[in-house]
């Protein structure tokens, strides 16, 4: 392996810039967590690594731009993939004009729609996991994703996006979410109705959530 330079230390993994057969690449290593039981920890990191590698490739076949996987080392919990040299969408959202915001999030919605239609849910949709690069939106970080066409899993996926918008971009979250839904509906068609109903149901679950601000005397 060529020389490696640490470029990002996330909560779950470290990213190193490296070289793979002459290509500029990034190595993602899921690090050991001292707060987890060792057996549980190696299971979680191993399964997420192989999961991510598989889903990155499958998503691209569905027309969702993702990094190209070059190699996987499940034992060391490492993936080498192509490097997308750009900051995440998160950094741009707050400075966007209303048209740009609407267009961007409608494209994010289309992208998630294509993924769901293809039987994949991402499991961690946030603006940190979307990278605008050369006119495309790249989706990364599939470690929590799974194969699923359940209304529930799809609903959770959309719910996560909505909550990520609310917690990280609260000033524009409703506009961004509406555009997201528009794009999603455009790709999913009638399939989106039960999913969006479920999104509301998920919000209303046992977590003391109120959609209608119901009041009792």
């Amino acid at each position: 392996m060529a020389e490696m330079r640490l470029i990002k230390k996330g909560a779950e993994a470290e990213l190193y810039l490296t070289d793979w057969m002459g290509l500029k690449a990034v190595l993602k290593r899921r690090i050991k967590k001292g707060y987890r039981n060792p057996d549980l920890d190696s299971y979680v990191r191993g399964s997420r690594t192989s999961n991510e590698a598989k889903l990155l490739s499958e998503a691209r076949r569905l027309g969702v731009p993702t990094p190209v996987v070059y190699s996987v080392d499940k034992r060391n919990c490492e993936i080498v993939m192509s490097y997308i040299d750009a900051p995440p969408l998160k950094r741009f959202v707050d400075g966007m004009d209303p048209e740009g915001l609407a267009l961007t999030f409608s494209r994010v919605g289309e992208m998630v729609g294509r993924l769901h239609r293809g039987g994949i849910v991402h499991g961690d949709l946030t603006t940190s996991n979307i990278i605008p690069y050369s006119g495309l939106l790249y989706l990364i970080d599939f470690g929590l994703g799974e194969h699923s066409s359940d209304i529930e899993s799809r609903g959770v996926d959309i719910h996560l996006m909505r909550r990520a918008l609310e917690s990280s971009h609260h000033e524009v979250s409703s506009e961004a979410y509406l555009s997201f839904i528009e794009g999603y509906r455009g790709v999913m068609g009638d399939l989106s109705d039960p999913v969006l109903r479920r999104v509301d149901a998920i919000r209303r679950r046992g977590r003391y959530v109120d959609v209608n601000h119901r009041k009792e005397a």
Partner: protein
Amino acid sequence: MNSVQYILGIESTAHTFGCGIASSEGKILSNVKSEYVPASGGIHPREASQHHAAKAAATISGALKEAGLRLNDIAAVAFSAGPGLGPCLRTGATVARTLSLVRKCPLVPVNHCIAHIEIGRLVTCEDDPLVVYVSGGNTIISAYAGGRYRVFGETLDIALGNCLDTFARHLGLPHPGVPKLEQLADGGKKFIPLPYVVKGQDVSYSGLLTMASRLASKCDMGDLSLSLLEVAYGMVAEVAERAIAHTEKGALLLTGGVARSKRLQRALSFVCSDHSARFHVVPPDLAGDNGGMIAWTGYLALKEGLTVPVESSYVNPNWRLDEVEVPWRR
């Protein structure tokens, strides 16, 4: 007004009826509680509310006596207006309205989740922590931003405490179940794989509970308890770690009834040392539901004029943490 004010707080969201008195100087002068313990099974909302109605008078006079005050010394009455069980909330609200009418003083509705956060900020002197709030009814990762406590992660189904309590009952452990589960886990050796479900910043406990309950008759109790707790706490620690990396807060505050767990405290202090953040736990007597936290948060709200006339003092069983403006943090 320069003199010290005293606020009386009523807590009645679930199994605890509590009355606490806080001073405007940030002291909890008394904190008396009475807990409803079901004969079997989980909380029965109507029985719990009957318990609260029966214990209200003694709890309140106990709190006044302990603080060395009379009802006439009270400047305002605060109450838990939600989230919680409807019948229990209504009982507490009725008691609070009555006190406010008798004393002719302002009535202050308080969001129960915010009270858990504010009491933690008060006693740890940590101004702006990432909050991990875990109890029988709530599992929330929250931090302050732009006038409100934002929710960064939460449970997608049942709460952490609910999962552990239900499992403890399934094993036939007497109430309170979680400390006994922890004792069993200390004797566990082998890790049994159980569903570890993290979705984004959210967690899910219902599958874990189902699986662990199914294995109860087939596995060693120590091993199973160990595995359940490791998985359940590991999930909270992971989403807390993601939130602390994301928000870059310099401290983490653990609050709510499950904050008493030493094993969970260990996991989260590990997370904090990895991210050079300070770790704080709310002391045991203030971690669970109590009236003192309602009184203190009531004082913060009273200062901002957030009182409510008796005739529109509704409770809201589904009152979300992130719906509430917290102007005292501006």
